[in-house]
């Protein structure tokens, strides 16, 4: 920590940090567009201009020169400096709010807005846009620009990414993000002067395909204006309508901290957390948009052979089946929280006490049998796309190998499938092809075992329709719980969506089933 003078007041700042970050820590906001804590400094936007100076030192005595009031004389640099590119030196003087700085910022803002279409009513970024915020706080309310604005049509450059060149202020953030964080060199600045645009430059030459990586949402997010937009949420809402909750992303075992964006009890997207310095600046597209179709085809009623029914009718019938069964197999659990896993384990011990042979297997997919739990797809996303696979692995020993699992499935009298066919919220009825690829689905289909399968599911799909019975359970955003991430850390998720009243979690529905089972057992004894 060193002492510097900000607007004449002595403050202590962390000199290892960038000046903008260091001042932000002591609640002094320096406007910035191109600067991002995770990206290299380029100093392109010039909105962070500050006045810098040093105390005047008498060369003979090496002592500060004092003015008539006894204060040290400051030698101000004649030109303004870019705040993001200024190193913190002990004893430096900076002005972030002097008239000269304010005038310079107003001028820079006027330049940035020369070609900006000012179409905030239409722009999806409006409400979370740095340009909008700083235009209101440090800009000027009128423009002197009378000429015709540059107009370049909007382009689709990514599978989920649009670029609106008119809104772009050429801050270079997207180029640096793609190059330094994602590691692809496919965005670049083209042309010069007024014609400069951000262009997609694919490796195989212009026009060959679209930008297709897992961080297009992050690109739109770090864009300080509305130049980069995500197509799948385009015009679906306005940002100030979103309710925000702190939660964790259920998309993979990394369990990133996220802020949820909810409107009308529907999740629109996940956003990076409110305190990014602690919790990470970026989240991947897979997580960000994982809940975009979450509210479609939710399973809310108990199903008996595909027909909607009531729990009072379904549970006693299934309890009888449990009563008659000898081998019970529980499949799944990688999507359930620690609390639910404990409940499922309690249910299995109940069945064991009643003399059943109970097995529990959590591995259903190929990568699970190959033990690829720690395989990273990119710097955030894991191959293991279940939120609590680490927790279930610590709790359940499982079966020896895949052959044993398949023979156990064939031998079981009753199979409880916990959320396997709806996880991670991708297998709905309209996505039947994807569901058919599921190894467990194929196994049950080929051996015609549906009459002994009970699906605990969040979404209605062909599995819940063809199973003996399906129990609706709470989905990830609707319940609080503890999850174990890939590093073995326990993470708490919060309730972000309101579930219909009475919808149980998987632990609760098994407990309700076992109350009937135990009643029946007491009667028969």
């Amino acid at each position, binding site marked *: 920590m060193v002492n510097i003078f900000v607007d004449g007041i002595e403050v202590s700042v962390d000199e290892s940090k960038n000046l903008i970050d260091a001042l932000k820590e002591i609640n002094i906001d320096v406007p910035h567009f191109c600067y991002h804590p995770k990206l290299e400094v380029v100093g392109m936007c010039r909105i962070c201009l500050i006045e810098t100076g040093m105390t005047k030192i008498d060369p003979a005595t090496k002592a500060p020169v004092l003015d008539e009031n006894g204060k040290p004389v400051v030698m101000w640099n004649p030109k303004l400096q870019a705040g993001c590119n200024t190193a913190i030196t002990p004893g430096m003087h900076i002005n972030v709010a002097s008239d000269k700085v304010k005038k310079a910022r107003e001028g820079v803002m006027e330049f940035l807005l020369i070609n900006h279409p000012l*179409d905030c*009513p*239409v722009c999806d970024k409006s409400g979370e846009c740095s340009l909008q915020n700083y235009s209101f706080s440090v800009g000027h309310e009128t423009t002197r620009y009378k000429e015709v604005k540059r107009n370049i049509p*909007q382009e689709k450059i990514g599978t989920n990414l649009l670029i609106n060149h008119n809104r772009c202020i050429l801050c270079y953030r997207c180029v640096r993000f793609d190059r330094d964080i994602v590691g692809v060199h496919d965005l670049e600045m083209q042309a010069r002067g007024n014609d400069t645009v951000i262009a997609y430059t694919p490796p195989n030459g212009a026009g060959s395909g679209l930008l297709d990586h897992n961080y297009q949402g992050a690109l739109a997010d770090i864009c300080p204006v509305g130049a980069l937009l995500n197509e799948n949420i*385009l*015009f*679906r809402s*306005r940002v100030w*309508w979103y309710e925000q909750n702190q939660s964790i992303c259920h998309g993979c075992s990394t369990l990133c901290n996220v802020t949820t964006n909810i409107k009308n009890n529907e999740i629109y997207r996940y956003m990076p957390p409110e305190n990014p310095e602690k919790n990470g600046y970026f989240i991947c597209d897979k997580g960000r948009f994982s809940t975009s179709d979450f509210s479609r085809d939710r399973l809310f009623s108990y199903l008996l052979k595909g027909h909607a029914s009531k729990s009072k009718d379904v549970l006693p019938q299934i309890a009888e089946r449990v009563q008659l069964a000898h081998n019970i197999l529980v499949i799944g659990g990688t999507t359930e929280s620690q609390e639910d896993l404990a409940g499922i384990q309690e249910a299995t011990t109940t069945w064991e006490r009643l003399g059943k042979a109970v097995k529990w297997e959590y591995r259903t997919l190929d990568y699970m049998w190959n033990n690829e739990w720690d395989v990273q797809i990119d710097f955030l996303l894991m191959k293991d796309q279940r939120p609590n696979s680490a927790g279930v692995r610590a709790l359940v020993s499982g079966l020896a190998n895949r052959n044993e699992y398949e023979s156990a499935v064939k031998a079981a009298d009753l199979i409880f499938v916990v959320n396997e066919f709806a996880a991670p919220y991708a297998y709905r009825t309209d996505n039947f092809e994807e569901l058919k690829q599921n190894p467990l689905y194929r196994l049950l289909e080929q051996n015609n075992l549906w009459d002994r399968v009970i699906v605990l599911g969040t979404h209605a799909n062909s599995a819940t329709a063809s199973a003996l019975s399906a129990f609706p359970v709470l989905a990830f955003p609707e319940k609080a719980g503890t999850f174990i991430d890939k590093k073995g850390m326990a993470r708490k998720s919060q309730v972000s969506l309101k579930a219909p009243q009475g919808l149980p979690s998987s632990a609760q529905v098994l407990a309700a089933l076992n109350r009937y089972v135990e009643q029946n057992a007491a009667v028969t004894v």
Partner: protein
Amino acid sequence: MATKTIKVSEKYAWKWYEKFYFMSISLGMFVTLKHFIKSAFLRQQVTVSYPEERKPLSSRFRGLHRHKRDEEGRERCTACYCCQWVCPADAIHIEAAAVKPEEQHLYREDKYAKVFNVDLLRCIFCGLCEEACPKGAIYLDGGIPMPDDSRDRLILTKEMMMEPTGGKIIGERL
């Protein structure tokens, strides 16, 4: 002029000539006769036979919602949701969509209101939507809302509200 004080605690004693009501009745009949002569012979009647005949409304009258187009006949509304957001009665429902390239001549921006419904059963005609609109697209200048016996007809759709062409320039009322 000296005022006549009547003590209400005591019962007013009518004078003998007041008991005939002659003075009051003739005063009232004079007013009636005056207006009868005015409207019957001098054509100075004040009532109109509504709804066939209507009196001009004030330029600030807030009535039915009207959607405006710009000088080139394009829809002004860009589905910014400002009116829906400001509406205190929650009467406006908008669904936005992106404009297809072949329809671009119909809209000013690349976003338009696919659905724009105003629920007159909820609307309180406060005019906040008109004030909030940054594009001058919605005005409450469509006259007096008429009652209806169908709920559907009281939910205005964009087609019902859209004026054929032209329209007022932004900020101008009437």
